[in-house]
């Protein structure tokens, strides 16, 4: 028995709820740490919780402190993480000032002159504002939904494989695209859909279907990009879900089996419901970055092909093109800040909605 287990059992009397609280979340917290680029957002959100909740939270925290003193090494373990978090996530926030400065290399961030909201002007008055915000949001929603569904399906299916080496092999193979650079993915896409004779068109012809001029059809691209995104990233999320599934106690399934449940029923009634907190938290974390278009992906795949801009031009690619001549730090930081603030607002809104439905599934 590891120290962790002891810690958990002491915390709560009801073993099952302990597991529910920490068992499944343990892996999530870990993934959270990986994903969380918005920990400042969480910190800020914590500070605006309502008083009643703060009191409850305080009690909870006091309880945690009491526990912490019983096992101080756990706290020590967190120290390196906290230090890196502070250095890499909090200290650089000083750079937010750039958004309000006419940045000058020689004067540095502090020495440059203040310009108020001038840096925000170009983006917020741009004729493309609506289009790029809409594209960013819709594409990210499409990515989140498709990736989550695909990752869940993969995780559940992988969990059903009983031959161990095969499960591991498939897991690795599905995970592999995640390590592929977007530039490479862009080239693969180009050879599948572009060039003089796109590979996919040859397939279509063999199937007796008519050819498609892929790089002209803007309306197809949200779907194409979603497919690519799923291919690229679903394996990564599947592993997180798989970890969460493994932490569901085997006895639940045994009990279900005794009651005569089929495998499919077990998945539907046990696995999926118990995964909901994980799904919800991962989704909330992704929503925090919903205003950030995936520049590396979209620029590598779409590039400067303006025929596809109506559906694929996101905030980040638009800003990139705007800044080609000016290379202005202040103006690009302003857009970055705008994205972060909008992301934070959305996370808070969605989180409060989730809390109302199910406290367990909320981020805070």
């Amino acid at each position, binding site marked *: 028995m590891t*120290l962790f287990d002891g810690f958990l059992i002491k915390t709560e009397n009801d073993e099952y709820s302990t597991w529910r609280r920490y068992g499944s979340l343990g892996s999530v917290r870990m993934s959270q740490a990986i994903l969380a680029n918005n920990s400042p957002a969480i910190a800020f959100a914590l500070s605006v919780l309502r008083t009643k909740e703060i009191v409850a939270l305080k009690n909870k925290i006091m309880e945690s402190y009491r526990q912490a003193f019983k096992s101080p*090494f756990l706290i*020590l*373990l967190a*120290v*390196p993480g906290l*230090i890196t978090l502070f250095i890499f996530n909090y200290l650089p926030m000083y750079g937010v000032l750039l958004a309000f400065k*006419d940045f*000058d*290399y*020689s*004067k*540095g961030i502090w020495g440059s002159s203040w310009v108020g909201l*001038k840096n925000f*002007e*170009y*983006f917020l*008055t*741009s*004729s*493309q504002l609506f289009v790029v915000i809409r594209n960013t949001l819709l594409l990210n929603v499409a990515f989140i939904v498709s990736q989550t569904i695909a990752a869940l399906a993969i995780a559940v299916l992988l969990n059903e494989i009983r031959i161990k080496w095969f499960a591991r092999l498939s897991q690795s193979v599905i995970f592999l695209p995640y390590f592929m650079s977007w530039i490479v993915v862009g080239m693969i896409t*180009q050879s599948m859909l*572009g*060039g*003089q004779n796109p590979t996919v068109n040859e397939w279509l012809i063999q199937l007796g279907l008519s050819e498609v*001029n892929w*790089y*002209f059809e803007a309306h197809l691209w949200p779907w194409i990009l979603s497919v690519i995104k799923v291919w690229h990233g679903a394996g990564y999320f599947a592993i997180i879900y798989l970890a969460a599934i493994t932490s569901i106690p085997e006895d639940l399934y045994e009990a279900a089996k005794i009651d005569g449940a089929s495998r499919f029923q077990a998945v539907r009634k046990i696995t999926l419901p118990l995964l909901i907190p994980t799904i919800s938290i991962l989704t909330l974390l992704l929503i925090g970055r919903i205003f950030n278009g995936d520049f590396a992906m979209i620029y590598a795949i779409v*590039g*400067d*092909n*303006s*025929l596809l*801009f109506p559906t694929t031009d996101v905030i980040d690619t*638009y800003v990139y*093109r*705007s*800044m*080609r*001549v*000016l*290379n*202005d*730090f202040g*103006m690009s930081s302003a857009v970055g800040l705008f994205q972060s603030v909008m992301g934070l607002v959305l996370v808070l809104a969605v989180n409060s909605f989730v809390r109302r439905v199910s406290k367990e599934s909320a981020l805070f």
Partner: protein
Amino acid sequence: MKKWRWMGAVTVVLLLAAVSLSACSSNGNSKPNAENGAGTPTASEGNAEKPKEIVELKALFPGDTPQGFDEVMAAVNEKLKKDNIGASLKIQFIPWSDYGNTTSVKIAANEQFDMFLEAPWLHMGQMIASDSIYALDEFVEGREELKQSIPEMMWEANKFNGKIMGIPLGTTQTMVYGFQVRKDLREKYGLPEIKTLDDMVNFLYAVKENDKDLIPFVVDQRTAGHNAQRFNSLYYTNDYDGFAVTNEFLATSDKKVIPIYERPGYENGYKYSEQFYKDGIFHKNIMQEQNAATLFNQGKAASYPYYSDGVVNYTDLLKNVPGAELEIVVPAVDGWKPLSDFKQWNFLSVPKYSKNVELVMDVMNWLSIKENHDLLEYGIQGKDWNPVGESGYESISDYSFPGYVMTWRPQLARTPSTMIADDKKWVDFSKDANNFSPAVTTGFTANLDAVKTEIAQITPLNEQILSPMAAGLHKFEDGIAKYKSEMERAGSQKVIEELQKQLDAFLAGK
């Protein structure tokens, strides 16, 4: 027991964290000392007969490190030592995608380095405005080799606010646009030599008619925008007025700043594009084409854009496609004297934080001597290249130094032995400042600070509207109407007024 094991683990983790953190901070502290450079002899070198102390000069350039670079660098440093310049070179290449940011961040962070590639398309304007780079006038003076290797007009025209802010790097004054044409095909169709743009268009349609599988004119999406100028018959005459102040605004010979679409004959090129796209002279997926050069070199296209930049990109065509012959067509009138502001794209600048500006200029002077120039630009003679005649060279290894970052000099550049005579004619034409008429903007650089918001909204319109229009995908009338209204909405009038004000002030002070 268990508890102790945990404590051990925790201690290790903490120790590691502490060590890595302290390593970080001590690195940060020691850096300036280690790289303060001036006067610190490099241990491995030095100690020849009465040698100067050798200072290592650090250079930052964009791109990938050339193959076999270490050997050439060793030879360069050896020669520097032999000639007792008192410096050695350490060149670091930074990938293109990061170069702009890396250099500006390094400058903002006062990091020590001695020279770098700077350019108006990078952040030269900001660097000058913020006084981050040296004015080199006094250092150029008296360094004769350097001064002589660049024509007077080029020095003069590449000053910023009257000062040399970087050594202008270039081999030509202004690139001339034209066409690379498959001569064998033209002769096969029985067409006479191409002298005018109309002849060129006839050729393109002849290809379409006779060789259904060939693309008459292939061009990359990235450069499709140049079609507007390349297919503008006025460009090849002396009536093509207006020279670019920024991408979107021109200054005419009567000293007026106008948006590009007000230039007489602006529609000519776009009209051709529209027609060419419809008629299949351009191929269908021009908007995502990235391999135009390959297609042309494989013999799958009959013509390809030409720029008089001295780059030979047709060797594979002549080698691999049986019967392929090439001619360069610039369908210009006799006595053509295109406008030029003699401005170069690239500059070698010295950051204010470098303490070695004199030495940097010594090295640049040294690099302006033919022998040394050839060593860095073409590699080790006999191993990387062989001279061909007085001004040609034959490359025999894969070494290729991006000369535009440091070594390009119009008077010293050799032409590759693979360059065909037609090409050499136009490259030589472009090298000579006397072949161009000076634009009113010669020596003028616009400062866009006051109109940043407007420029940021105007810049993306290029890819969004002009580029597909130049590829022939949109009707000119629709596209240009949209472009005009978007430009006006973004505040083009304010930009014009600002640029006009700056240009007037510049011309008044001339």
